[in-house]
């Protein structure tokens, strides 16, 4: 077993990815009041497009990464137009929008499967070795091995989160997002184009989800059409834990879930990691049904 400190380092970088991913759920939920269950497919899109650009089109990572994020952002916007908006305009129940998003997720994953076959001859593909520096930084005194990519992830994730906070709390468009989150009728009376705010929210959620997917692919190097499944439940757990629709809640929830997973693997083996996560979620919800940050309205966007 690795040292405690080593586990912390691992948990923090995994948590950064989970948080980025969970933020996408939280953003959309805060604005629409609906869970976008196709967000895991957006995550996969980020990894898929990143891999495609690097492996097949031989682009450097600094070009591939932003393009992958933007592609994921557009897939996310497409979800709004195809899976959510038509139902919302017909006054459909939130449950049917949820189901519609599940359908969209399956469709996107299937399309990715179709694309994987000719591109990589199966459903599994790998980022080239050495794409990111993989020589671990060893700190003997602390018996710590840190793979550089894990530090890079942390920095990128933090930068994105700070940018998002700035956007939501300090800009005109963020103010409009918060107004729509408060009440879309009131926002419309204030001259805010609610439909445009929805589209922008889906785009932001997609950027973050796509970044999370790409980083996840870079850490584990392999990408499949199904990598969204790895994080779908984890992300949901993170936002329920943190409080639905709360940005800070999604952040803390993501790190918390990663920590619980990492330590339960270290202690009990990987078979129990999800059982432990969901067990703790259950206990927490009994004590605090609104989640950790469920009441801090000011952080909703």
């Amino acid at each position: 077993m690795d040292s405690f400190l080593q586990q912390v380092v691992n948990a923090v970088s995994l948590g950064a990815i989970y948080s980025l991913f969970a933020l996408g759920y939280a953003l959309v939920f805060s604005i629409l009041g609906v869970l976008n269950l196709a967000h895991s497919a957006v995550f996969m899109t980020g990894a898929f497009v990143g891999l495609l650009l690097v492996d097949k089109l031989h682009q450097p990572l600094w070009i591939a990464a932003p393009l992958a994020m933007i592609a994921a952002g557009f897939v996310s916007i497409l979800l709004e137009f195809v899976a959510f908006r038509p139902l919302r305009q017909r006054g459909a129940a939130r449950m049917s929008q949820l189901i519609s998003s599940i359908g969209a997720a399956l469709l996107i994953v299937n399309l990715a499967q179709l694309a994987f076959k000719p591109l990589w001859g199966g459903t599994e593909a790998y980022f080239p070795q050495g794409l990111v520096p993989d020589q671990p930084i060893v700190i003997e005194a602390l018996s710590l091995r840190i793979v550089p990519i894990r530090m890079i992830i942390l920095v990128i994730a933090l930068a994105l989160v700070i940018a998002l906070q700035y956007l939501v709390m300090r800009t005109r468009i963020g103010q409009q997002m918060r107004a729509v989150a408060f009440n879309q009728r009131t926002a419309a009376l204030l001259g805010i184009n609610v439909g445009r705010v929805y589209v922008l929210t889906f785009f932001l959620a997609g950027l973050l989800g796509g970044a999370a997917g790409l980083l996840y692919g870079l850490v584990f190097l392999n990408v499949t059409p199904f990598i969204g499944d790895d994080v779908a439940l984890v992300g949901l757990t993170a936002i329920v834990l943190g409080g639905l629709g709360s940005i800070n809640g999604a952040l803390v929830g993501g790190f918390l879930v990663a920590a619980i997973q990492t330590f339960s693997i270290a202690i009990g083996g990987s078979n129990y990691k999800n059982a432990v996560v969901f067990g703790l979620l259950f206990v927490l919800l009994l004590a605090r049904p609104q989640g950790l940050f469920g009441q801090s309205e000011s952080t909703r966007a």
Partner: protein
Amino acid sequence: MALLEVSDLWVSYGMIAALRSVSFKLEEGQVVTLIGANGAGKSTTLNTLSGLLRASAGSIRFNGVEMIGRRPDRIAAMGMVQVPEGRQVIANMSVAENLTAGAHVRRDGRTDEELAAIYARFPRLNERRTQKAGLLSGGEQQMLAVGRALMMQPTLLMMDEPSMGLAPLLVKDVFRIIAEIKERGISILLVEQNARQALAIADYAYVLERGKVVAEGTAAELSNNPAILAAYLG
């Protein structure tokens, strides 16, 4: 040409007709009030004017332009601004952020001047500009909702029950503010259950009953109508 001309407006919720051939008009600079009991269709009328509800028939002409079918944000940007029932200040935003939330629709670019004027008129809002709007009292929230609407440079201000839930002293304040807004040349469409106060300030009034206009006239005419007196001013 009237500033606002509503003719033969029909609105329904599913199978139930909420407005049945409602017609009324408002001349520039006037205060016109819609009075009537709960459920008579007053708020439905305002929300249809604002584009939140869809009319099934009729027309809404504002400055001669048909407004039916336009998005609520476009309607607000064209100068038809609503102060909604229950104020609807954005609880988790600061007072200052609430005031500027709709200011992007101003056409004259005088946002800063208007903000300064609002803070001067409502010193309580100035004192509390960094506080969350949800922490304000009901009266202060009403001032904030009115200020927020003025920031949007309305040509026609539509107010839905501005005196609702306020203590009598504050109700007087609200009507004083309405008079001041009228002084500035802004036309006002006022929906009120407090018919006596509304008639006292209005140039013209319409009485709604179960989705229909059943009476209309100047405030003086309606105040002398025994049926109206009994039903709404009793």
